[in-house]
């Protein structure tokens, strides 16, 4: 069963690696190039399909890679629109002085602290900020110490530039670039992280809450007593502590088709796509 899950997840990962960019290179077509966060990716892909259906003369190519890649690609002029799931760092602003980063927030998301379903089912349904901190520094290395079974914790961290990591670490350590001596593995995209956690039975990681499923469970965060679940409701009412904006970025004011595309995502129909992808709209 686990194998089958892993297999399906890895097929999704395959599509991410092999079949993207979703380019249909046609002659004389105007192209919008996009790259970045894998959290924003599903929204962008679905919106692009709908948008291209209405505007047959436009071709949209979308590359995954992570928020860092999104900012970098825009900075280097490789894309028209970058996708990020965090804010632009000072470092990035400094590296690209000529670029006027213009952020268009298209939705909100929660970064969940996720654990293998085996651990969740064995009783670990909530963790406090301090506990997560100690797990990532290696001070806590057994699930037993946080109310779970007597099993080593397999700590999964993310590539340093990923938006999910920035937001998660900013909350847990108060530092978006925090170092984690306790980490056992580094993963990249949401799909990869989901696969790794699904295949493990003692793992902890961080994941956009839209990727939570029956093998990868999001724990509640205990904040001074009450436990807050990573749910749409708690993102909406602002009580879930690790949430973030999902954004598209452009160099200055967008123009032409890029502007139209961003407006489309911000429209009622576009926002439905945001919500259908498991995020919260901005209206």
């Amino acid at each position, binding site marked *: 069963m686990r194998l089958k899950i892993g297999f399906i997840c890895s097929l999704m990962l395959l599509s991410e690696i092999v079949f993207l960019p979703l380019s249909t290179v046609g002659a004389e077509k105007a192209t919008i190039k996009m790259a970045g966060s894998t959290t924003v990716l599903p929204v962008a892909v679905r919106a692009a399909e709908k948008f291209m259906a209405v505007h047959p003369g436009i071709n949209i190519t979308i590359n995954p890679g*992570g928020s860092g890649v999104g900012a970098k690609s825009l900075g*280097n002029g490789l894309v028209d629109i970058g996708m990020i799931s965090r804010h632009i760092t000072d470092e990035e602003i400094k590296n690209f002085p000529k670029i006027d980063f213009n952020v268009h927030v298209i939705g909100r998301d929660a970064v969940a602290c996720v654990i293998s379903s085996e651990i969740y089912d064995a009783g670990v349904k909530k963790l406090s900020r301090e506990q997560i901190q100690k797990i990532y520094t290696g001070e806590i290395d057994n699930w037993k110490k946080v109310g779970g079974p007597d099993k080593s914790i397999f700590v999964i961290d993310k590539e340093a530039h990923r938006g999910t990591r920035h937001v998660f670490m900013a909350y847990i350590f108060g530092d978006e670039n925090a170092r984690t001596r306790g980490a056992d*593995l*580094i993963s990249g995209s949401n799909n990869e992280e989901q696969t790794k956690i699904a295949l493990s039975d003692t793992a902890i990681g961080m994941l956009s809450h839209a990727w939570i499923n029956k093998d990868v469970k999001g724990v509640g965060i205990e904040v001074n007593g009450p436990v807050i679940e990573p749910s749409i409701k708690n993102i909406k009412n602002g009580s879930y502590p690790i949430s973030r904006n999902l954004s598209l970025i452009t160099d200055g004011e967008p123009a032409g088709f890029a502007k139209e595309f961003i407006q489309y995502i911000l429209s009622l129909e576009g926002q439905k796509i945001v919500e259908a992808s498991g995020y919260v709209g901005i209206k």
Partner: protein
Amino acid sequence: MWALSRWRPGRAFFASSFFISISVTGIIFIFLIMESFPIFQHEGLGFLSGSEWYPGEVYGALPMIYGTGVVTFIAVSFALPLALGSAIITSEVLSGRVRLVIKMMMELLAGIPGVVYGLLGISLLTTAVKNTFNLIDGNSFFTAGILLSIMILPTVMTLSEDALRSVPKEYRDQALALGLKRSETILYAVLPGAIKGIAGAVLLGIGRAMGETISVMLVIGSLDRIPRPFYNIFTTGQTITSKLGREGAEALGVGYHWNALAGLGLILFLTVMGITFIGNSIVGPLAGRGINNKMKQKKR
């Protein structure tokens, strides 16, 4: 080869493709040296000996160099006996038709892209390794090594088989006629004649193993560290290629981070070029046939 070089258009074609590949290689080499130069200025030899890598602060390549070495070593230790065994069976025992089918399958397998192996690895192999060795997780140097050994197996096997086949039939007949058993004939008459070709095959396999990116990236765990104790191959680590795959796009173009990745690229480039060069020069003109040529020269 001879016939080809007499055929003028063919000669021109080979010359030009040779020239193109040489110049592309040269350009890559120069590019890597230029792009990595700042990091050697910045870190000095500490770049090669340092074991900490935090972009923006410090760049030490040792964990990646270590990982590449270990993973390649594991890959070859598993691939070589299997490849050699199946090459011997295919070349010395099986009939012509079965042999052709196997060779065809092997060449087909050799052509499967790394991603596919990576995805099989990420689901099937990690789970198998985890269960077999009772680990917390299946991502490890060992898993990456095994995956690579599967990937290079067809290459090493077909090339070794070619080397065995190129040993003159007379050697086998002579050994058999002296009363040696089949196994002794292979061991004492065939293998010594093919040993250069086999060595070349292994070197080419090593070259491929070192250069493979995606499949390794998906199963090694991508953690920049040298395990403790250093021979603990059942933990996660990093290779040069997996590092490049993880951070290349993000570091693209500017800063020491990019220079450091280019430096990693340069290390890998030099190693793989060296090994491929040695491998090619062994496999190319000699490969067992060399002995035969010597014999012919003597006769004249």
